[in-house]
């Protein structure tokens, strides 16, 4: 009637050592005469030291000696389970009867009694009954009864009432004996010294020892040759502990301990931040970059913000890499430039790269033909001019961007170029002003895309200190151009560079313009240049007659100024026409002549008729169609003689 007892658990294969001698002796005594000597017998020990083996052997021996004995061997868990089952099935009487008639009750792992009140009271009754009739109880636990928490006092006294024995960890000799016995049992053979070496390892319990032995056995079975003692620790994977290791030469130990002390001291005293900077220096130095910046930081006695320092450094290096790449794409020779290896010279590197990029084709500057002092001011454009002067005085800060709009021919281009020229003059030519028509911008972009020189093209505009774009309304509907302009615009704007745009209508009326651009255009100052007013017209006529070195009378200018025009170009056209007519007619520019010429009314007899009765063919009045300056007569003559 042995339940759950393993036949392998016998006394003859239980190795007796100093740690378990008492427990074994008590168990044997109990097995030989149950119920008479130590009742109850309480065996406790740490896990894996042989409790279960011992009580199993006890049961076997008892059964061997008295085959008619009724023995129940079970763990407390199983006992509780059976108890609960009997209660729920209403068969508690049968349960009681079964246990109350047992001769030897062996309960394993009774430490689980903790807190189980119901089980405890049942056990108390059972114990009282069994002990009263002289039957044996044997219990095992991983701790002494007094340390099992929360156990009924009366049960506790009963548990402790018999003999309490413990099993200690096996000593070296016992371990050897255990290992030898296991080897014999399993037919394992090891070389001399192996078992001894394994036994030197201080395993906490026999199970671990057995596990280590299994490991050795497996290794030996796998390998061709049998294991030697030196392999043991490696295979088992333990470092020797001091007392059980083979006594190493004392020397090495002393040195090792000195070494580990030094290691601790170094770890404590090496300054982490310095070590990190050191690493960074080693790394970037190896990459060929100059590390003077970091080395200086290393000299400091207090810790800088290492993260920031290193991050900044590596950002600079990344930037240098980009610049180098860009520069060498233009000019391969620049790639090796020392500047690209020194994070402290990023500015120089930037300039070098920019020069390289912009160097080939500097952006077109403003046309010198459009001078500021040649720009006449009247009430219609006064506002625009005043703003332009302010922009010149303080470029990039006051009104950025400046958008000049107005109908065709009112002087937008002139004024925009004039601002560019003024900026150039004021800076003594140091400034780069790029002045481009929107149409040219578009064409250049297309060409750059075609040739794959987009980067360089962009850099050209970004490198300029001021950007003037004429006729910006042409970019309407051109998405890619708008994208590019957007980037260039932002780059300039962020760098505080002046942007001047001209357009034939205010930005808000530009169709097909992306909102992000429109809003940016509107974000500066939008000024209209109106059609020339009377005062301006007067000035313009006077200036343009003067330019052609014609003298006019005040009344002519008054008359002309009264005529309304839509653009400055019209005025220039009129001046040309009048001059040409006067030349053809050989007359001075008088009010009557001009009036006659422009209104088709002849105030005075046409002076031309004095030379010819016919009216002058209008063909001759168009100065573009007439050769005004013939070559020298003598030169022509020689030609004819030949």
């Amino acid at each position, binding site marked *: 009637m042995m339940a759950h007892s393993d036949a392998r658990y016998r006394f003859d294969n239980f190795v007796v050592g100093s740690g378990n001698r008492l427990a074994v002796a008590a168990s044997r005594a109990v097995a030989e005469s149950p119920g008479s000597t130590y009742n109850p017998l309480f065996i406790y020990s740490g896990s894996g030291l042989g409790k279960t083996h011992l009580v199993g052997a006890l049961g076997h021996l008892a059964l061997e000696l008295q085959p008619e004995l009724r023995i129940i061997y079970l763990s407390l868990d199983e006992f509780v389970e059976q108890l609960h089952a009997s209660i729920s099935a209403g068969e508690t009487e049968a349960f009681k009867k079964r246990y109350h008639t047992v001769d030897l009750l062996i309960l394993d792992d009774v430490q689980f009694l903790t807190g189980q009140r119901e089980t405890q009271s049942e056990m108390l009754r059972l114990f009282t009954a069994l002990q009263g009739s002289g039957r044996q109880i044997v219990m095992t636990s991983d701790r002494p009864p007094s340390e099992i928490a929360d156990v009924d006092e009366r049960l506790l006294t009963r548990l402790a009432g018999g003999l309490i024995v413990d099993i200690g960890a096996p000593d070296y000799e016992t371990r050897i004996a255990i290992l030898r016995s296991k080897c014999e049992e399993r037919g394992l053979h090891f070389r001399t010294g192996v078992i001894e070496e394994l036994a030197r390892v201080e395993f906490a319990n026999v199970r671990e020892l057995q596990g280590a032995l299994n490991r050795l056995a497996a290794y030996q079975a796998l390998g061709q040759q049998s294991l030697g003692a030196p392999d043991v620790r490696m295979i088992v994977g333990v470092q020797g502990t001091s007392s059980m290791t083979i006594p190493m030469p004392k020397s*090495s130990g002393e040195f*090792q301990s000195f070494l580990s*002390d*030094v*290691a601790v001291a*170094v770890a404590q005293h*090496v300054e982490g931040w*310095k070590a990190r900077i*050191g690493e960074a*220096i080693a790394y970037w130095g190896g990459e060929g970059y100059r590390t003077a910046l970091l080395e200086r930081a290393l000299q400091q006695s207090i810790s800088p913000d290492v993260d920031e320092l290193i991050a900044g450094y590596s950002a600079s290096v990344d930037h240098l890499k980009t610049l180098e790449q860009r520069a060498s794409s233009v000019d391969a020779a620049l790639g090796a430039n020392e500047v690209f290896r020194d994070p402290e010279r990023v500015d120089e590197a930037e300039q070098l790269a920019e020069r390289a990029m912009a160097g080939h084709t500097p952006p077109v500057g403003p046309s010198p033909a459009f001078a500021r002092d040649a720009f006449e001011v009247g009430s219609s454009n006064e506002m625009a001019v005043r703003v332009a002067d302010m922009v010149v005085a303080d470029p990039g800060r006051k009104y950025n961007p400046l958008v000049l709009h107005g109908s065709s021919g009112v002087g937008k281009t002139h004024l925009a170029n004039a601002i560019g020229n003024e900026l150039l003059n004021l800076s003594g030519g140091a400034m780069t002003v790029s002045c481009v028509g929107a149409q040219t911008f578009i064409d250049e972009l297309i060409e750059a895309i075609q040739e794959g020189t987009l980067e360089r093209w962009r850099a050209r505009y970004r490198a300029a200190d001021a950007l003037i774009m004429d006729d910006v309304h042409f970019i309407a509907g051109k998405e890619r151009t708008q994208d590019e302009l957007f980037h260039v615009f932002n780059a300039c704007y962020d760098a505080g560079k002046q942007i001047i745009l001209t357009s034939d209508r205010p930005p808000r009326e530009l169709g097909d313009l992306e909102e992000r651009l429109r809003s940016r255009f509107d974000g500066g100052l939008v000024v209209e240049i109106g059609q020339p007013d009377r005062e301006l017209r007067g000035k313009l006529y006077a200036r343009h007659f003067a330019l052609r070195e014609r003298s006019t009378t005040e009344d002519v200018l008054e008359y002309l100024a009264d005529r309304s025009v839509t653009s400055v170009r019209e005025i220039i056209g009129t001046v040309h026409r009048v001059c040409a007519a006067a030349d053809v007619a050989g007359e001075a520019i008088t009010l009557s002549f001009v009036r006659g010429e422009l209104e088709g009314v002849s105030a005075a007899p046409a002076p031309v008729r004095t030379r010819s009765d016919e009216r002058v063919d209008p063909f001759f009045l168009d100065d573009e169609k007439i050769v005004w300056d013939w070559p020298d007569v003598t030169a022509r003559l020689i030609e004819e003689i030949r």
Partner: protein
Amino acid sequence: MSLVNYSTREITCKIVYYGPGRSGKTTNLHYIYGQVPEDRKGTMVSLATQTDRTLFFDFLPLDLGAISGFTTKFQLYTVPGQVYYQTTRKLVLQGADGVVFVADSQARQLDENIESFQDLHANLAEHGINAREVPLVIQYNKQDLPKDLILTVPELEDALNFRSVPHYEADALHGPGVFETLRGISELVLKRLSAGSGSDR
């Protein structure tokens, strides 16, 4: 000579064993050399006369391998103890990161101890090293001799250790105290890593 080089990730410590003649400086080094595992052993350079007196100096390089990522090297030197090797002593002391003063515990050597200790201070001063700041430990060697021949540690302390630096009893011939001394001076020296004075010397 720099103690710690963060750029090349090296730590180099020069430790000088100083003391009167026959106090056991070389014996210290020999013992340490004997304990170094074969794979780490450098060559101990010993310039000794036939009677085993240090003529010039002993030099024992200790390569401790990589510690916290630093290639760590200790260089142990001894000076010749005899009074007339003054120049050599001064030379060896140059650039020392730490000094071990090995005192002879024998009662009759007390004067030599004191004289050598003063000599140490004089030489440090000549190198422009502030004796108060340089890492220094004292080893009272030969404490294994019969009690009637030697002075006790308190007596020696009275005579020599007016600065209250760490001190160690030792029997350099057989080992006790040797590594304790080395450990003591190493700790003092390494402590200066964080004091910031090491990197720019």
